[in-house]
């Protein structure tokens, strides 16, 4: 167990040298006290507000807990109920999250890459304007986003979309865009896509601009004929790290979305569960029904999903250091 681990570890990023932590602790602190002092403030808040809640969620997921009595250990019961009993979970939360995530995640990410590439093809001087135009929507994230779009999607004939469609004659009466189960999900997807050009997009943009120009010239000599080949053989391979960062941001951003359905429809659960995502399911059980144990179980499932999808991105874009 105490043999030096560094020789056997192939991917140092993924598997930390845990053995080193166990070796004489006090001595290490004495020798490196300054480093630890620097790290301490962040580490304390990190552990308190991110690590402990995550571990506590895993712990609570095995209990019955109503926030008044002490948690009661129930083993795998919550998981069994989630998998076998929870109709809303299977009928609405999972399919909705799946539909939402598949469209917003990959599509938003690919759109982000394409847009970043297009912006970088423009003359340098005017790039800023377009970057700003694409990034601005993501700044409205949260409450402001709902206000912006409720103006457009307002359910009476005074809403911009309704009045426009009435004028053109596509609809003959005002539609309740954000309350009608028929539309809510699509509206949510549209709105989220609109606001999804955030940090990940900026990373992709910077990555593309950072590719060494000489590589393109070398590529031309090697027989690259058009821009598509250029993107595939030069741009993407040389910005894999940024691609990965952007992908991880996209995955997390997509799977943590959920507030938007409540903000648009004004209710949790949304009408006929039409915009019910996993996050809403957690809030529903946690903060409305006070079944904290069960809500934690759903959190854990969501965390595991996020982690697995992120690992998948890692497989796609991670640098292989074998």
């Amino acid at each position: 167990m105490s043999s030096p681990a560094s020789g056997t570890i192939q991917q140092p990023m993924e598997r930390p040298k845990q053995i080193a932590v166990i070796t004489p602790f006090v001595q290490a602190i004495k020798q490196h006290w300054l480093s630890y002092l620097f790290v301490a403030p962040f580490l304390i808040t990190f552990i308190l507000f991110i690590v402990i809640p995550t571990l506590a969620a895993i712990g609570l997921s095995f209990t019955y807990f109503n926030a008044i009595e002490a948690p009661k250990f129930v083993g795998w019961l919550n998981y069994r109920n989630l998998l076998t009993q929870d109709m809303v979970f299977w009928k609405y939360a999972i399919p909705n999250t799946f539909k939402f995530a598949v469209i917003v995640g990959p599509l938003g990410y690919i759109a982000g890459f394409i847009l970043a590439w297009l912006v970088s093809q423009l003359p340098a001087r005017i790039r800023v304007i377009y970057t700003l135009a694409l990034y601005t929507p993501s700044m409205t994230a949260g409450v402001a986003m709902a206000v912006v779009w409720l103006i457009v999607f307002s359910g009476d004939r005074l809403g911009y979309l309704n009045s426009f469609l009435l004028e053109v004659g596509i609809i003959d009466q005002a539609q309740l865009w954000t309350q009608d189960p028929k539309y809510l999900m699509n509206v949510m997807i549209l709105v989220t896509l609109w606001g999804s050009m955030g940090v990940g997009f900026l990373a992709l943009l910077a990555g593309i601009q950072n590719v060494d120009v000489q590589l393109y010239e070398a590529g031309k000599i090697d027989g690259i004929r058009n821009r598509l080949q250029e993107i595939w053989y030069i741009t993407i391979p040389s910005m894999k790290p940024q691609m990965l960062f952007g992908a991880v941001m996209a995955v997390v951003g997509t799977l943590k979305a959920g507030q938007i359905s409540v903000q648009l429809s004004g209710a949790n659960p949304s009408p006929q569960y039409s915009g019910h995502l996993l996050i809403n399911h957690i809030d529903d059980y946690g903060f409305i029904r006070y079944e904290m144990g069960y809500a934690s179980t759903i959190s854990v499932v969501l965390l595991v999903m996020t982690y697995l999808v992120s690992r998948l991105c890692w497989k796609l874009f991670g640098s292989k250091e074998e």
Partner: protein
Amino acid sequence: MQAWNNALRKGIGSLRKVSAFQWILFILMSLLAMFMLLPIVYLFNHALKPYYELFLYPPTFIARNPSFQNFIDLIVVTQSSIVPMTRYLFNSIVASLLVVVTSCLFSVLCAYPLSKHKFPGKGLIFSGIIISLMFAPEMVGIPRYFVISQLGIINTYWGHVLPLVAMPVGVFLMKQFIDQIPNELLEASKVEGAKEHMIFLKIVIPLCMPAVATTAILSFQSAWSTDETSTLFMENETMKTLPFFVNTLTNQLANNVANQGAAAAAALLLFIPNFIIFLLLQRKVITTMMHSGIK
């Protein structure tokens, strides 16, 4: 005059170099940019519309008689209610400033040794940060609530600030950025007798200002626009923040324009600071993002 002519010739020259592809791209991207900004334009106009104009049919896109009535209403109408709007605004400003300052400071403090020192546990901490990039704290809101109530910071500014201080993305971006600072530079100043904290203050901090600016933007955006801390950690109405207030305005909004002017004005208050800060610092953000890759 000669210089002017030269400049002009150069300008025309660079215009000619613009290819047909770039012209098409330019037009398409302009259309897209307009589409992306359109809702924001609506928001502006709505906020500036006087009350009667909200009920015009067909709805006007540009406010005909722009007025600041909505903003005044927002302040005056809520003046007499239990919590005036200015109180929410004040809370938001205090909380956001505290979050930005502490999270930038903590992030850069943590990123420097992670990048340039060797110490046991470093790998563990960094992989912890990488893994947490893949999680969102929103997903574990319930246990977070218990941690915060255990700490006794419910209904205090700490409840707004502390949960948002730890920003793994910030530390990650800064660490990648500090990696670019050559070790020789730090060692040279060590040879000249500079203490560790002097190196940190005089070399590392000035050189990684772009990353600090980026972290500041990101933390400001998260703090300024979150209503999570208000809904979950604040029971006292006087301690809640602006996004929470806007949320109460929008709750009845879906099918009714009556309140939209006020809501738009309040949402604009949420949006404009974000926009200005990004506008001022966007160059630094792009520089930072060049080093954002996960290797």
